[in-house]
């Protein structure tokens, strides 16, 4: 919650529309409303979806902003709505965001100004980030995954990742149909860590949502375990923004 009563807290930033768009489109696959924690070093957002299946942890350094004038505070924002408004802005257009006397957010871009109340963030929980140690870490381009994602959508509700020594096989099976995507070490991905085979299944719906946030052509680090959450890490805006997505697995009972 932002402090109430004695005046209002300073929050005034200017930033390229592209950066904001990046931030919001990374968050919206998880949730429509977020609690933004801002201080002198930059922004941080942690959010989970209502079912606690997917989580995002995003950091954006103050260096990504054109102008940054912020006292420590927490803001509830409807990012879905903001993202909608940003669609009309050009990539390098400067956006100004400012908190006014009545704790309303003012967003201005070129000749357009929007004002809206903050979302009450008091009810937002601070998600606990699980401490994961995953045996496999791979570096690859998200385009490699998008291919399989598209193909599996008509097949099943979930995807299985199976990583052995020299390849990562992603499958989606139901009844008689199946999709198999084989990625080879050295050609489609670079191995960063391999401490033993890893196999986990994930909801296709959720995974597709995350991939929407990742985008179609981005270098990512993929971490997999055995019936353990999946972790995707990547950077944006020249490394000034860092993202971590976590996705809980499906665990079939014996």
């Amino acid at each position: 919650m932002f402090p109430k009563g004695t005046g209002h807290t300073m929050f005034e930033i200017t930033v390229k529309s592209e950066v904001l768009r990046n931030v919001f489109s990374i968050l919206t696959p998880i949730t429509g409303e977020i609690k933004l924690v801002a201080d002198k070093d930059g922004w941080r957002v942690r959010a989970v979806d209502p079912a606690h299946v997917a989580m995002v942890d995003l950091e954006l350094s103050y260096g990504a902003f054109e102008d940054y004038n912020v006292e420590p505070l927490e803001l509830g924002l409807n990012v879905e709505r903001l993202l909608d408004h940003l669609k009309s802005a050009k990539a390098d257009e400067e956006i100004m965001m400012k908190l006014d006397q009545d704790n309303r957010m003012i967003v201005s871009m070129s000749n357009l100004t929007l004002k809206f109340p903050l979302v009450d963030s008091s009810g937002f929980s601070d998600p606990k980030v699980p401490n994961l140690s995953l045996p496999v870490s791979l570096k690859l381009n998200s385009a490699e995954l998008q291919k399989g994602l598209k193909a599996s959508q008509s097949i099943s509700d979930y995807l299985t990742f199976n990583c052995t020594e020299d390849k990562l096989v992603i499958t989606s099976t139901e009844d008689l149909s199946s999709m198999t995507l084989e990625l080879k070490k050295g050609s489609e991905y670079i191995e960063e860590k391999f401490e033993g085979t890893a196999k986990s299944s994930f909801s296709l719906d959720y995974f597709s949502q995350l991939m929407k946030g990742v985008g179609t052509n981005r270098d990512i680090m993929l971490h997999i375990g055995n019936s353990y959450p999946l972790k995707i890490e990547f950077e944006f805006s020249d490394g000034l923004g860092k993202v971590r997505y976590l996705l809980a697995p499906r665990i079939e009972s014996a």
Partner: protein
Amino acid sequence: MIELPKGLHKRISEALKIWDIEDLYPPQKEAFPIIASGKNMVVCVPTASGKSLIAYVAMLNKVLRGGKALYIVPLRALASEKYSELKALRRMGLRIALSYGDYDSEDANLERNDIVIATSEKADSLLRNRAGWLSRLGVIVADEVHLMNDAGRGPTLEVILTRFKQLEHPPQIVCLSATVGNADEVSAWLDAKLVDSDFRPVKLVEGVLEGNIVTDPNLTTRNIPIVTGDPIMDLILETVEKDNAQVLTFVNTRKGCETAAAKAALTVHRLIDKKDRERLKDVIMKLGSGESRMLKRLRSALEGGCAFHHAGLSNEQRGLVEEAFRSKAIRALYATPTLAAGINLPARRVVVRDWTRYETYNPRSPIPVLEVKQMLGRAGRPRYDKEGEGLVLARDPDEARELLERYIWGKNESIFSKLGSMPALRTHLLSSFSTGHVMDRKGMWEFISSTFYAHQNDTWKLEGDVEETLLFLEEEGFIYTEGEKIFATDMGKRVARLYIDPLSAVVLKNALMMPPDEITAFSVLQVISSTTDVPSLYLKAKDHDTLSKFLEGRHDQLMMDVPEDQVDMEWFLSSVKTAMFFMEWIGENGSEASEERMEELFNMGPGDIRSRVEKALWMLYAMRELSRLLNTGFSSYIDMISLRVEHGIREELIPLVKLKGIGRIRARKLFQAGYRSLDSINRATIDEIAKVGGIGRTLAASIKSAAGPDMSMMEEDPEPEIDPQSSLADF
């Protein structure tokens, strides 16, 4: 590529692609421009003719522009079916939600969704609890609008539509309906454009089956080879052998379904090949090892490639039968007519075996044309069949002639508003006062005159009943008047939000004001069983003695006076019988009754038990809330009874059923094995717990780790499957 009319959002073509739609049916082509125009619309087309797509496109057209949509369906089963179709739209970044569950709860995340699917009862309660959200809707779709004709649920739907119609900025209203005689009247009421079509993607030939002769509407006849001499049996044999297809037969009683299916299995048996036999065996295995008569019959029917489908089966069992029928492992399915109103389960041939049914005013009352046509309309599987055949069975040539006239050539009935009934009036008037929708007599009459009832009748006919209702509501303390103004009291508002008949609230309220010497499970269960919202069990002649004996010595537990009057006494006794039913279920007489025992005692399958339990839970909740409001101090006792009814258990099992995956049966086994608390489970090892019958290692591990405080979620099934989706909180 489908060309969309001007004014429809461009991204709708994306959705059509997701659903693999390559071509539009004529009614769809007719409806799309109306959707684009933003006008209200009533769509009357036969089942399985692409009605749903019209609804989906109407919703997309608004939500893609940032509006919200509400989809109202009559049954939960339908809500789930629509949900699974609409879920695919998540890929387009849309949020879809199913809203059912407690009527007075406020789903916290509701307004985050673009499309909300709800039953009409839930939608009505949303109107009472969440008027704000509903006023932001861009479109509402009401499915199966012809059910406005239904005395029980029709008024609710009618009131919802009226409310929306009356909004200052009303949303677009799209109504889907089966073919009815007065579609024009419905569309005139809603100021809507009418799309009325008899188009079907699969041709339907209707007819009458008499002896081995099938007569079509043009009086052309065809003979079925006589093998057994039983017309339906011979039709099934012909369909299976010659066409390699399936038959769906509608029978009006559950028992009739069961016997017919078991009998048919003896003949169909020899036509089942090895592969299907394996699949059927698999279904039988998944049905579990229950020993109830119903399950035994279902198993023996399945062994011969036949099955039955009715509300006595649990959701899970019904799901298994539906799946096996869709995969064609089941060749002949016998179902009660509820199937025709609900899920989509088409077959090459459909037979309506019984065209009359029991009604109190006429034990052989003919089923309305509308309903028979809906059953016949299930014939013909899109994409598989060129043609479907829907037949009504006649016992002799005279009857054949009569049935041709009544059903095959006959016109569908018109539908009529049922809002004029007293229960509908008191429920919906109270709700209008409590939401502030209506604040005085003038507003009340404005509301009444916007209804379909008023469109069809003169409102002065209602004056007497309305006055009587107002008097009742005021006397019972639900409303108060100041001159022309009318307000709901706090009690009245609570009752409206609880979504119960005000008359039930009066029963609960009076009982709470008359505390018994000793409150027991019986006290509470008898009270809720005497409300109109919990259907009582049918009283048989021989029950009188049993019940009187049961009541002896229990009088000081009662929370109401035993009536003197003969008719009231009947009503009272059946509430006692219903209470006994719940008492068996929660093991009040020693141990929790098994499903087999419940069937033996009360002739009820798991599906019946579930639906009664859900109604009882709702009434218990209402009683608890009223108890709080009246400060009677029974709240925690009622809560405890409610938990017991929910799970069907004695008090000592309450801590155990809070564990996910543990229902009444496993809880009892754990208890018997000495695990009497969460603590004792925590102290045991996984292997020790896994030794208890019916609990494998996976479950043992999951219950051991589930030590969190909040596990009391309502589960649909008594022994829920574990959701394979884990949560990040587990790691």
